[in-house]
């Protein structure tokens, strides 16, 4: 589904990604861990087609970035720590706007928007402007926006940032129940600093360190308690535990 070979990205003379190789199967949930500046977000931005690779080859669903980005963008849903929504528009207006951008058929837009708002529990707030929403509600709407066009691939860029305990638990629920991330319906790549949640959701763990993949393996090959140690060894941290 996603293939990356020899991916290099530099900003000026500063290398952020220094030869990343990766293969993600359809239906796999890959959690990307790594310290700040390790290149997680840059890699996601390349997968989103928002940044061009300096060198290397990136294929998504058989299409190559950046040559075939239009086909790839139809397949991508993105949830970030930023809302990617418009404060001054209502929840419904936001989703209708993105439904038009993703060319959902006019006859289906209303039903699709209504149905997805219901799934994320915002149907009663459909006519309210987003600036009246709590951070948790905004994140629920962001998930609705990301799933609106039923993408095959979901990219989650630190989606838990800024969420309180309840909102984070609700996001867990939505990712599992609405986005179907554990059913193999979608291929998911999530960057996070939350090792517990990475282990809880992912089928595979990747650890980026200094622009390279320092560790990659299935969660089934480790226990939840082992992950912090693996992480610390990979990124070269000294653990106090």
């Amino acid at each position, binding site marked *: 589904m996603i293939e990356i070979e020899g991916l290099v990205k530099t900003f000026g003379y500063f290398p952020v990604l220094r030869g990343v*190789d990766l*293969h993600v199967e*359809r239906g796999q949930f890959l959690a990307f861990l790594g310290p700040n500046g390790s290149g997680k977000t840059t890699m996601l931005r390349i997968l989103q087609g*928002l940044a061009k690779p300096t060198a290397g080859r990136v294929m998504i*669903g058989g299409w190559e970035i950046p040559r075939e980005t239009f086909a790839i963008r*139809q397949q991508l849903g993105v949830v970030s720590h*930023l809302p990617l929504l418009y404060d001054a528009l209502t929840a419904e207006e936001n989703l209708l706007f993105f439904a038009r951008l993703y060319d959902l058929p006019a006859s289906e837009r209303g039903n699709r928007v209504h149905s997805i708002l219901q799934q994320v529990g915002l149907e009663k707030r459909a006519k309210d402007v987003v600036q009246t929403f709590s951070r948790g509600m905004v994140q629920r709407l962001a998930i609705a926006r990301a799933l609106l066009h039923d993408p095959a691939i979901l990219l989650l860029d630190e989606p838990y940032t800024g969420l309180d305990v309840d909102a984070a638990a609700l996001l867990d629920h939505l990712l599992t129940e609405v986005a179907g991330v554990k059913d193999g319906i979608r291929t998911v790549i999530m960057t996070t600093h939350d090792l517990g949640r990475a282990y809880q959701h992912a089928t595979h763990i990747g650890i980026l360190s200094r622009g390279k993949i*320092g*560790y*990659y393996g299935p969660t089934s090959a480790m226990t939840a308690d082992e992950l912090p140690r693996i992480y610390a060894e990979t990124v070269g941290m000294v653990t106090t535990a």
Partner: protein
Amino acid sequence: MSATTTTSETTTPAAKPRRLRTPYFQVVASLAWKDLRAEARGRELVNAMLLFSVMAVLIFSFALELDRQAQEATVGGVLWVTIAFAGTLGLGRSLAAEKDKGSLDALLLAPVERSALFYGKMIGNFLFTLAVGFLLVFLLTVLFNVNLFRPVLWLIIVLGCLGFATTGTLVSSMSVHARAREMLLPILLLPVILPIIISATRASTALLTELKTEDWLPWLQLLGMVDFVFLLAGFFLFDFIVEE
């Protein structure tokens, strides 16, 4: 601790999308509608631009105590200086708001031609600048006692605002990624809009001082040409500007 370097076998494309790209005019219209809808509700941009224009014109009218002939000769300049500064104020917020909430990324992620995003944003900026231009016609007519209600002047205002919004959208999409974007935008924008401001001011002044058609028409034609060049430049350049 093994770095994985799994090589690919064959890959099958994911499920076929509806259409590879969303129709061009659907994108332009949706984005313009979104900007107008958001502005109609929040009125952040237009209120700031209109208030700035009122204050600027009041300052000009009290600072320049002129006789009738001098008023006719200066009112065109006052009009375009005010449009340029009030417009810059609005442009700064227009794309910065998209950037701050990440919605610019959301637009760039959609399967749309990026030049369509440019024209969609430009239409919103154009209409907001035009609102300022029309308000100024009323204000300057009252405060400078010069009749600005002339069809050709309205045409000059439409063309001048179109050129300003086109150039401004292009330049503000460059400066929006910079840390000191509020300072950078006027520094980058003002030299680029000089041909627009000069031709619009010259055409307006020639018209208002009752000069002959051949005195203002070349400036109007120049304004139209500059608009066309920048409209075309947006089509070709916007994709490169927003790319990292």
